[in-house]
């Protein structure tokens, strides 16, 4: 994915039970999305600590997306409800600090939604690419 | 204690009794009804549409005046009470509506601070029926009295919050306190035909007859109401069932009815 010649780096946190399986399904169905998206498997979206997200930005990520089971379908019954509150708060704060809204996203993707996974990643990568390099939250010293 | 009082147009005119007996009885019970200055007619019915602002201003004026005195606002007429209470509720809960009203009114904004009581609520919740019972000098023993609530006292329940809207007891309990026997019948909260009597008196008559029949079957000897329009419709039904204002009976029980008649 390139927009104006910029290839973004995107970290996707996917919960093991729904979204990671959804990503696998996208693969099974050969639905392509940009290779800029790198997936990290977590047991549940509620395992995603805001520190991980900031760390990714610090180390040069241009966008971070968190995927979990649809509300009500969490393997652990309530994990994604906590994710929803935590990320709503974190994203609001990043926006308050002047960070581009499009660099963060939460999406609910079930194990059956391979097509949604691919479409989401395509859309997210395009939006992030359009923003260009993550200057605001990036740590120049850590980037090689 | 002193409370602000909104009499309403009909109580100054066709329903003077309702007003006079209410004042007299209240005095006996230690409450002075202080009439709001320059009150204007409430309009008779509450227009539910939330873009109707001007029709609700007279209620807000009365509410503001009571607020300025730090008094609750009391009315006896069920219709006035309904309009004022619903308006106050809208001022409390509909910020957009409240801002429009406050724009009209100017000066100090009003946000629904006033407590709105119907006269019956005042007796039940502030004075207390025990107190009423204690002041009864002329118990109405043996009288079988059926309370007619109509629609406006109780509904919409989410706003009016007066009593169980389907099986109310506020009037029955007062009837008991006055020493009489309340008659419970299911149609006591059904509509008498209301203002449609203007255009279609036959219809109002049918509705009123249903109510009276139901009360009669339950053994009622007299109907009481707090609404002049209800009383009118029930009387126009042309039966031999007497229909009186609840305040009239109250004044009788408290021994102040004759005083008013002599004047």
């Amino acid at each position, binding site marked *: 994915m390139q927009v104006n010649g910029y290839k973004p780096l995107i970290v996707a946190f996917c919960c093991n039970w729904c979204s990671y399986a959804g990503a696998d399904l996208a693969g099974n169905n050969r639905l392509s999305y940009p290779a800029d998206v790198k997936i990290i498997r977590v047991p549940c979206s509620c395992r995603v600590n805001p520190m991980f997200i900031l760390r990714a930005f610090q180390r040069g990520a241009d966008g971070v997306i968190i995927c979990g089971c649809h509300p009500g379908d969490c393997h652990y019954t309530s994990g994604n409800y906590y994710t929803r509150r935590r990320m709503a708060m974190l994203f609001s704060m990043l926006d308050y600090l002047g960070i581009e809204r499009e660099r963060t996203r939460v999406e609910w993707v079930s194990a059956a939604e391979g097509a949604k996974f691919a479409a989401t990643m395509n859309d997210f990568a395009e939006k992030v690419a359009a923003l260009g390099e993550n200057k605001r939250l990036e740590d120049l010293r850590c980037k090689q | 204690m002193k409370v602000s009082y909104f009499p309403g*147009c009909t109580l100054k005119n066709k329903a003077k009794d309702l007003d006079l007996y209410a004042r007299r009885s209240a005095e006996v019970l230690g409450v002075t009804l202080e009439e709001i200055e320059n009150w204007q007619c409430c309009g*008779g019915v509450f227009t539910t*549409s939330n873009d109707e602002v001007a029709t609700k201003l007279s209620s807000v004026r009365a509410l503001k005046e009571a607020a300025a005195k730090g008094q609750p606002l009391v009315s006896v007429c069920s219709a006035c009470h309904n309009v004022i209470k619903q308006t106050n509720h809208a001022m409390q809960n509909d910020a957009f509506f409240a801002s429009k009203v406050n724009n009209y009114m100017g000066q100090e904004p009003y946000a629904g601070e006033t407590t709105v009581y119907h006269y019956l609520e005042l007796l039940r919740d502030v004075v207390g029926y025990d107190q009423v019972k204690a002041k009864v000098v002329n118990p109405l023993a043996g009288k079988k009295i059926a309370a007619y609530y109509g629609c*406006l006292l109780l509904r919409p329940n989410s706003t009016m919050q007066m009593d169980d809207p389907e099986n109310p007891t506020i009037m029955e309990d007062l009837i008991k306190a006055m020493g009489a026997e309340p008659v419970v019948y299911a149609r006591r909260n059904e509509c008498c*035909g*209301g203002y*449609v009597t203007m255009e*279609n008196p036959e219809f109002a008559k049918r509705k009123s007859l249903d109510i009276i029949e139901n009360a009669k079957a339950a053994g009622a000897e007299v109907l009481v109401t707090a609404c*002049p329009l209800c009383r009118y419709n029930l009387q126009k039904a042309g039966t031999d069932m007497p229909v009186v204002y609840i305040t009239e009976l109250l004044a009788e029980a408290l021994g102040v009815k004759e005083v008013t008649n002599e004047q």
Partner: protein
Amino acid sequence: MSSNKKFLQEELTRMSGVNPKKCMKCGKCSGTCPAYDEMEYHPHQFVSMVESGDIEPLLNSKSLYRCLTCFACVDRCPRGVEPAKLVEAVRLVAVRKQGANHMTANDVPAMLDDDIPQQAIVSAFRKYTK
């Protein structure tokens, strides 16, 4: 649905605060309505017709002036739809049109008798005119 119908529908739901989609079509409003037999369109039909955008017949119907606003349907509706508020909104749309008052001052004297309370007259005016 035509844009005009849609506009009217949105206007009515905005004015009344009623969401006709909440209706589960049980008919309790019409089961409880004291003015049912006076009406051509009954409370549940108001809800259903506003929901489908079929509002014109309601605007022209005398049923608008038969609703007593007794709130029986409002209190008893299991879904919290509040049909009476919708009827009121339709009626307001009808009478707010120029010259569309349902009652005029000239009509009143014929309706009066010695006992009629002022309340009835002001209420009727508020309901029937703009």
